């Protein structure tokens, strides 16, 4: 994604690209930012910062290519490199969860984490959102990108700067963790 040939857009072309190709993704961008920061003001600042960067570097964007993936990549990098440091609420990281992931040879990784459709059916949105938000940021991110935003593995690999194999395994692990959280939450609520 960083290998793109530089363009030389006129000012009016830049504004057109920005309005027609970048701004239509603001809804997804804001939701992604909110799920990273858990704060409406922080999410707003992060999205604004991302769009300003996108405009500043618009000559490295090729018109008609995947603007959404490019914007998500900028937002993710802004969050990691700049935003997390000055955020009012630092990203919540469950270190035990991350450690378990990176040392997971002896962990049950089967896809068959037991979760019935009826369990999720009975939950309200808040409960599902809470379970997603409780995941460490790396796991939360892949679920958002794949299951909520519909990015392909290849796009996710480019957005996150990781190999496709890592996308696949991280996603697999994230889904199992989410299912475990939903399952234990359902049990505690007596569903």
């Amino acid at each position, binding site marked *: 994604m960083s290998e793109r040939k530089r363009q030389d857009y006129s*000012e009016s072309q*830049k*504004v057109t690209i*920005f309005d027609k190709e970048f*701004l239509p993704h*603001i*809804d997804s961008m*804001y*939701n992604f930012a*909110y799920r990273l920061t858990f704060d*409406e003001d922080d*999410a*707003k600042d992060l*999205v*604004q910062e991302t*769009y*300003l960067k996108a*405009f*500043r570097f618009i000559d490295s964007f090729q018109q008609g290519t995947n603007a959404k993936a490019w914007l998500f990549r900028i937002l993710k990098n802004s969050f990691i490199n700049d935003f997390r440091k000055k955020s009012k609420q630092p990203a919540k990281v469950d270190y035990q969860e991350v450690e378990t*992931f*990176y*040392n*997971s*040879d002896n*962990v*049950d*990784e*089967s*896809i*068959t984490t037991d*979760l*019935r*459709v009826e369990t*999720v*059916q009975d*939950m*309200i*949105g*808040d*409960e*599902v*959102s809470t379970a*997603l938000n409780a995941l460490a940021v790396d796991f939360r991110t892949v679920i958002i990108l*794949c*299951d*909520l935003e519909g990015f*392909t*593995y290849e796009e996710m690999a480019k957005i996150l700067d990781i190999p496709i*194999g*890592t996308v*696949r*395994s*991280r*996603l*697999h*692990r994230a889904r199992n963790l*989410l*299912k475990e959280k939903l399952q234990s939450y359902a049990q505690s609520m007596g569903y």
Partner: protein
Amino acid sequence: MGIFFTNWLKSNKKQSQQEGVSSEKNDCSDCTDFNKCMAVLENVLDNEASPVEHQFFKEHIEKCMPCFTKITNEKDIRALIKLKIQKKTVPSDLVQSIKSKIQETV
């Protein structure tokens, strides 16, 4: 099943082991191809499966009830989670605020 698919399964298994993922556990004891199915299932669900994988899985679930049930359940759970995750509304002044800042730079 072609040599390509066999090699893919081997490399996928190797990759999975490197990433710390194992699909060895088989709790669908009625399925004779469980490991293969689990390796392919997520690709199918995520629209990442090759035509060979699609064909394998399509034919397999026609004769394997545990895997048919599994994929149906997985599909439904993913759809439900997507449906239940609440969307935040973009603040009404955000677009204007971004455009104003850009105007300052042009």
